[in-house]
């Protein structure tokens, strides 16, 4: 069982992680956005360490270590976030829509939880058995971070920001795991870490190729733009105009 002091520390760190995630999404300069993401990731590491100390769970130190590796590799390795940020045009058309939606969602979630159960800093007993009576603030913060990731993925159009959104969503999933399934961390971490890193590198590679050829990584501009560099002829048969119009509507 975690102490009130530890839970408060984790809550403050979770809020900080959330604020840094918002900055990473909202900042137009992509290199700066990468550093905000690093700050967000550092908060996660501190959360795992705090959890490890207060809950006396040694798995969490391993998890914090893995997250530390993740925090170094994803932004700073060749092909990673900073490498891509330097090669992709900045997000000039960024809107405040994801954060606005998130703010409304967060307020609605807090009100909904307050209406049906009580918000507590340290829930009594297992978090999953008590959801109808009390909800931990830390669990709510973790779920909201997960939700913010989804909102970013659904509203952002810049490929780099979509990758950031995915990472934020993953962070939310991680924090939820910490709340709900203590004792099972290493396996989950390895799984999530490997999966998301591989995918994010693949996505960033696609973003760099597109930016290199079409000078933008904004999907709205990419799909609305002219047939750049005769590339479309590379596709046997070429995609139909109807199909292209659908593309624009979906992503």
């Amino acid at each position, binding site marked *: 069982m975690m102490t009130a002091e530890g839970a408060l520390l984790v809550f403050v760190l979770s809020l900080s992680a959330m604020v840094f995630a918002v900055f990473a999404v909202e900042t137009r300069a992509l290199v700066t956005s990468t550093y905000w993401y690093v700050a967000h990731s550092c908060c996660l590491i501190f959360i795992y360490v705090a959890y490890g100390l207060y809950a006396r769970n040694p798995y969490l130190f391993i998890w914090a270590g893995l997250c530390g590796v993740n925090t170094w590799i994803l932004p700073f390795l060749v092909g990673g976030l900073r490498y891509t940020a330097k090669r992709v045009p900045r997000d000039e058309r960024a809107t405040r829509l994801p954060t606005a939606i998130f703010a409304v969602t967060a307020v609605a979630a807090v009100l909904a939880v307050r209406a049906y159960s009580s918000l507590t800093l340290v829930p009594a007993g297992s978090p999953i058995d008590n959801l109808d009576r009390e909800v931990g603030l830390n669990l709510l913060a973790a779920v909201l971070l997960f939700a913010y990731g989804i909102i970013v993925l659904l509203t952002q159009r810049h490929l780099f920001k979509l990758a950031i959104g995915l990472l934020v969503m993953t962070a939310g999933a991680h924090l939820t795991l910490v709340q709900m399934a203590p*004792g099972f961390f290493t396996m989950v971490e390895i799984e999530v870490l*490997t999966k998301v890193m*591989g*995918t994010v590198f*693949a996505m960033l590679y696609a973003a760099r*190729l*597109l930016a290199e*050829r079409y000078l933008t990584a904004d999907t709205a501009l990419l799909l609305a733009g002219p047939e750049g560099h005769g590339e479309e002829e590379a*596709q*046997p048969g070429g995609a139909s105009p109807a199909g292209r119009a659908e593309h624009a509507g979906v992503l």
Partner: protein
Amino acid sequence: MTTETSLLLPLIPFVPLLAALFVALGETEEGGRQAAFVLGTVPSFVLGVILAVQTVAGGPGGRPLILTAWGGFLYADVLSALLVCCTFLVVAGVGIFSFGYLRHDAERGLVTGAGSKLYYFLLLVFSAFMAWTLIISHLFFMFLVIEIATIAVSFLVATYKTKYALIASFKYNLLVVMAMLFAVMGAVFIFARMTTVDPTLSRIHVLEMGKLTSLLPASLALTIVACFVCAFGTKGGMMPFHSWLPDAHSEAPAPISALLSGLVVVVGPFGFARTVTLFAPHYSQVVVLAAALGGASIVIGILLALVQDDLKRLLAYSTISQVGYVFIGIGLGTYLGVYGGLFHAVTHLLAKALLFFCSGAIIYRLGLRRISDLGGLSRKMPLTAACFFAGCLSIGGLPFFAGFPSKYTIVLALAKAQLWWALAITAFAGTLTLAGLVWAGYRVFWGEESPKVAALPAGGRELPLSMTAPMLALGAAVVLLGVYPQALYPVLDGSVRSILGLVSLEVAP
């Protein structure tokens, strides 16, 4: 249930991985890569058949047999064995079809030597990790290998590196990872609840999911179901999680479209059967949810297919529609429903791969895929026309083609479950599917001959043997399963018993 240790299990993914290494590191020409590809997939297919024979035969006293390896980390029941066979059958077909297709692309300057090398490497890596997906017992590792297979497929989708191909690849990666995060959340909810019952629990075994479902409180169980539906619905291309599917199918090379429609989407129903189906007998809401989403998928998928001018996009939307049948069947959680769902997954896999091969054959000969640009092709490509119509009639569910018995079983299962609205939807959409696909086939092969088709030289060989052989094999399978559907009965029966046996249900048909 009897378990036996099998040495074959680890070999199945190991063989294609070895071949992938050879392709990646070897300094061979195209012929060497092709030989490595065949040697990497055909032995695994044979191993899959051996597994299927062993598991279907069962343990002592006819009890269901589970083969295991590495201390239970790997397992194979009849369902896994069936899908392993399907995996290597389709991958081998796709690879062999690609021999001619990719050579043609290389001649046109669309694919370089390095690109071709990467193509076969990724195909082999995909097949290995797809096999892992089917035989790994640890739920979280299953999600991991699904993701690695996804990364391989996303690179295959981006083979041509065009704007749309790269965006489709990006979107596919993004949506599937999102989906798998939902699956992880669902699994964590289960784990969080189960550790309060058994603190020593250290992992969730796929085959133990059935026992866990009855121990969960209703609200939590339904939340978990929602997570898994999002996850496997996305992977399977079910509405409303389908948005990756049309783009990926239309931008990938035709053989990869066949792989996507035939095999990649099957992971969705497989995961669904291993998770959501196990909740269906305990919670009627699961059946209604699966039927509603499956029904929406069937109707909206086929309606969107009918308005497409791009042949590959039409087939992609048809996949969304057909996957709806599979999800409805499997989601019912009854013997007949799961049998029909699995059967339709297999018949759709064969027919849709055949149709994408046919679209590939058209692109190979003409470089076109817009239906309005085609017409009167049957005189120039009679074999392709015959195969295309066999595929269309199977997907449409016409008697004597593979799609008929599978769809009919699902309809029977819906009638038995008294889900009349879902039955009406499947019947209505079935008619639309048949009419829509035959109409599209008519416009492509029998309509007025377009100038580009008229310019095509008549006579001579229609396609290279490497492209004709997989098409003919799939065409024959589609007809054979339509005429003699009992051929798959032992495997499907064993698969259904294996799934429903996990929730200790009465499995008499």
